[in-house]
């Protein structure tokens, strides 16, 4: 059977994955702190029918060999950590990270996850939580008599009470990874450490290698609608042309079949 069938099938599968990734990017065009993913393709192994420079007759060598590839695979989907747009919300507890770094979030089971979604809230006990209700690590509690809360560029949380005295109740810390693209996606805007990401380094915002915290802003998704749509069209056309290869191959085999009537 034609090798081209399976080759074209790998092409279709890979383009299908690309469409899936683009669809997820597009769906998250308004998700705070979302980072778009990009698909990275790799060609598959080659079948060497003839080595290049092989001797075909005495003194005559082929100028090039003959190697037939077996298609393509998706090597990885990588997150692109380019900054998203900063949207001014004016809300004191909305924080955006300018530069590298993630917020730490404690899950109910004690696991630590990471996020760039800085739309923070206060729960019933005055604890600083994410939109989903998970605690920010290190835990920060704001007393009930506070009248205003400010977050500094270094992540320090200042509370002013009714008498006008302000005090620092805690500092939001940032973490950084050698390879942020290696973090795994956990949903709910959360990322988890993996072997590929390397271990987290904790630090204060503004330190060398860490971004600063900007209160009153939210980092929007870094998905660019037009780019994604262009990629979507490319992927769709590539999918189509691979399926065309299968159809043409089928036609070829049909002529071969018709030969014997």
């Amino acid at each position, binding site marked *: 059977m*034609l090798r*081209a069938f399976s*080759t074209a099938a790998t*092409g279709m599968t*890979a*383009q299908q994955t690309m469409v899936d990734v683009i669809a997820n990017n597009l769906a998250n065009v308004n998700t705070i702190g979302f980072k778009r993913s*990009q*698909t*990275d*393709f*790799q*060609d598959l*192994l*080659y079948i*060497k029918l*003839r080595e290049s420079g092989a001797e*075909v*007759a005495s003194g*005559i060598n*082929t100028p*090039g*060999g*003959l*190697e*037939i*590839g077996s*298609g*393509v695979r998706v*090597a*990885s989907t*990588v997150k*692109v*950590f*380019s*900054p998203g747009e900063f949207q001014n919300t004016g809300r004191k507890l909305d924080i955006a990270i300018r530069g*590298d770094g993630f917020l730490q979030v404690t899950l109910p089971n004690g696991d630590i996850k990471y996020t760039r979604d800085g739309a923070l809230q206060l729960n019933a006990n005055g604890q600083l939580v994410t939109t989903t209700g998970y605690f920010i690590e290190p835990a920060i509690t704001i007393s009930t008599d506070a009248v205003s809360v400010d977050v500094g560029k270094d992540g320090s949380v200042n509370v002013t009470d009714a008498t006008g005295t302000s005090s620092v109740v805690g500092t939001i810390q940032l973490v*950084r990874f*050698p390879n942020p*693209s*290696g973090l795994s996606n956990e949903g709910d805007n959360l990322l988890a450490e993996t*072997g*590929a990401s*390397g271990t987290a*380094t904790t630090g204060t915002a503004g330190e060398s*290698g*860490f*971004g600063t915290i900007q209160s009153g802003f939210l980092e929007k998704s*870094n998905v660019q609608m037009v780019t994604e749509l262009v990629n979507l069209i*490319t992927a769709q*056309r*590539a999918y189509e*042309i691979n399926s*065309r*290869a299968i159809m*043409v191959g089928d*036609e*070829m085999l049909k*002529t071969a079949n*018709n*030969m014997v009537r």
Partner: protein
Amino acid sequence: MPDTIAQIRSSVDSLTEQFDIIAHNLANVSTAGYKRRCTVFSRLLDSQLRNSATGSNGEVALDGALDFSQGDIVETGRRLDFAIYGKGFFVVETPGGQLYTRNGVFHINQNGQIVDSDGRIIAGQAGPIVIPSTIGVSQIHVSTDGTVIGDGTVIGSFRLVDFGDNEDKLVSAGANCFQVPEDIQPAVAENVVVKQAYKEASNVKMMDELVNMITVSRLYEANMNFVSAQKEASDSIMEVAMG
């Protein structure tokens, strides 16, 4: 008559192989740094050359070659994506020796080394390029000559090589890499520009491949029709002979 059949057979085999190569090109239309395989069309002359030496019956043989023309440079915005403009390759260190690639979608592993999508180390001028843990990905700048700068200080430099006239000795190793026979030593690439946050798109042109695909399928059909015609001719001869 058997000669004709032998010729047709080799021609059909070659066309099938050519079709497989086209399908592989089409499958890699989105693979960064992929270089199109072209099939050598001057095989009439080529086969004549062989005829004189081997006295074979005009059978055709297919040759493949890599087309190293520049692919489009596409912006990705990812700080660890690199495109090479001009003739040159990144060097990938593997246990089985060095491989060469133009796919610059890189990562940093847990040790801070720059690696490719398969985790293989990308060679610098002096061993692997190690990004210190104090430097974030957004602080990495790579100048057009391949020097890696982290927060103002030089960390290392990509090893960029070129093969000059030996480029046709490169063979595909899969996973976006090429390899050369051991006796060929790469030279330092000159006149190359490394672009950070860009990647080189595949140099496969969909339209060209589509046209080639149609040509191949038509030639295949023509060969098959010829066999049918031969069959009919021999049938009628048999009819006459048998009365």
